[in-house]
């Protein structure tokens, strides 16, 4: 579990990139918090810099679009999904639970 920032520091429509390996992007979109792997599966671009529309984030480089809920690409050029990670808010602080660590613990 990785602390990200306080909830009020990530208003609706905002995103933050966490410099972990591999980097993770956290979004406040459509009234929810989402965390996905930050690097577009198509080419080297940071999805945290992408354009948000509802639950979709568009890669800033090539218009590949990913569903924040599932990590699945909704159109080309991306063909592979990004990983999604569980997000919780504890005492007003956003936390990301990396899916690889959660699976390892399960």
């Amino acid at each position: 579990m990785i602390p990200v920032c306080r909830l009020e520091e990530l208003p609706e429509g905002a995103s933050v990139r966490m410099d972990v390996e591999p980097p993770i992007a956290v979004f406040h979109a459509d009234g929810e918090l989402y965390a996905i792997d930050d690097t577009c599966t198509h080419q080297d671009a940071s999805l945290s810099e992408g354009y948000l529309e509802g639950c979709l984030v568009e890669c800033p480089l090539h218009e590949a679009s990913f569903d924040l809920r599932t990590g699945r690409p909704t159109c080309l050029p991306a063909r592979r999904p990004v990983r999604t990670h569980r997000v919780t808010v504890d005492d007003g602080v956003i936390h990301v639970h990396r899916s690889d660590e959660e699976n390892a613990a399960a």
Partner: protein
Amino acid sequence: MRTVTVVGASLAGLYAARELRAQGFDGRLVIVGEEQHRPYDRPPLSKGFLSGKAGESDLALSDDEETLELGAEWMFGARARGLDARGRTVLLEDGRTVSTDGVVIATGARARRLPGPVLPGVHTLRTLDEARALRADLRRGTQRVVVIGGGFIGAETASSCAAMGHDVTVVEAAPLPLLGQLGPEMAAVCARLHERGGVRLVTGTGVAALEGEQAVTGVRLTDGRLFPADVVVVGIGAIPNTEWLAGSTLAVHDGVLCDDGCVTSLPQVVAVGDVARVGGARAEHWTSATAQPRVAVRNLLAGHTVEHVRPLPYFWSDQYGSRIQFAGRREQDDVPRIVEGSTEEGGFLAVYERDARTTAVLALDRPRPFTRIRRELARAQAPAPVSTPAAAAEPAAV
């Protein structure tokens, strides 16, 4: 239509093949590619591939699963040398022919070279094989690199070479690199990136000759100066691959002439990507190559033009740790205005305006607001008008 042949197995050709299947074409699909490689993405060649950050497997545009699903007959290492007058037979250089009902021309463009024989150490950068050769030369210790041409390929190559520790000089014939694309104010701003990256930028002078006997040793400029060089990269534009169509009935002038729907003078022949002059303009943009095939294939299968395509010109460039993005149709006297950030440091967003209307947008490290304006511009221009000025590509002297 029982057989469709896609000539060209790069980005636009692959997208056309995908569209054929997606739009219900279940006949025989033949894909002819001059190179030996499966479709790969070219933009990384001057960036991550050169510096070693990306390998060849990172370049793949498709995978085994999709290749299987497409159910196409791939012919690699097969160079087309002709199309018969009716557009029903594709002739290959090795003597084979492909009989076909429909043709998608996606033969792209090749790097323009300097006249004369090519000395060892002199490179162009467009294909994977060219990138491999350049990368091999750059791995032989620290080199003096001269890049001829300050356009995107030149600037990205220079940036990659500098990051690898080489001593780099960029020679640009125009007063500033990217002058035609960005205008004088913004071209001057972007030119400063070279300096920031530790690269020498020499402008306003052409190349008189490459020096060297067995291998290149230097670049002689028209103003008399000589820059010693172990490696020279020539990035002076691209020439559309249309020579193979010489015996056909198709009209060719700096690209295959098409209507606004990518349809040539033969209704069962369409053209997409760098080789296509669509509605008077040829756009050597990644996004044009991916946007045109859907419409081209629709018109091909319909037998006539039922839809026009006019993607908003969009290009990007990664150099010296910064990302430049540009979208829109800038005309010569459109005035740029900084709307966010600063040209001095940390990136900026600029819009070009004419009569209080935004015509184009330029960003340096401002991807999110850039995308917002790019989308607004794309929305504003739809639906595509039929007659358009040829602003996206300048006719090259051939």
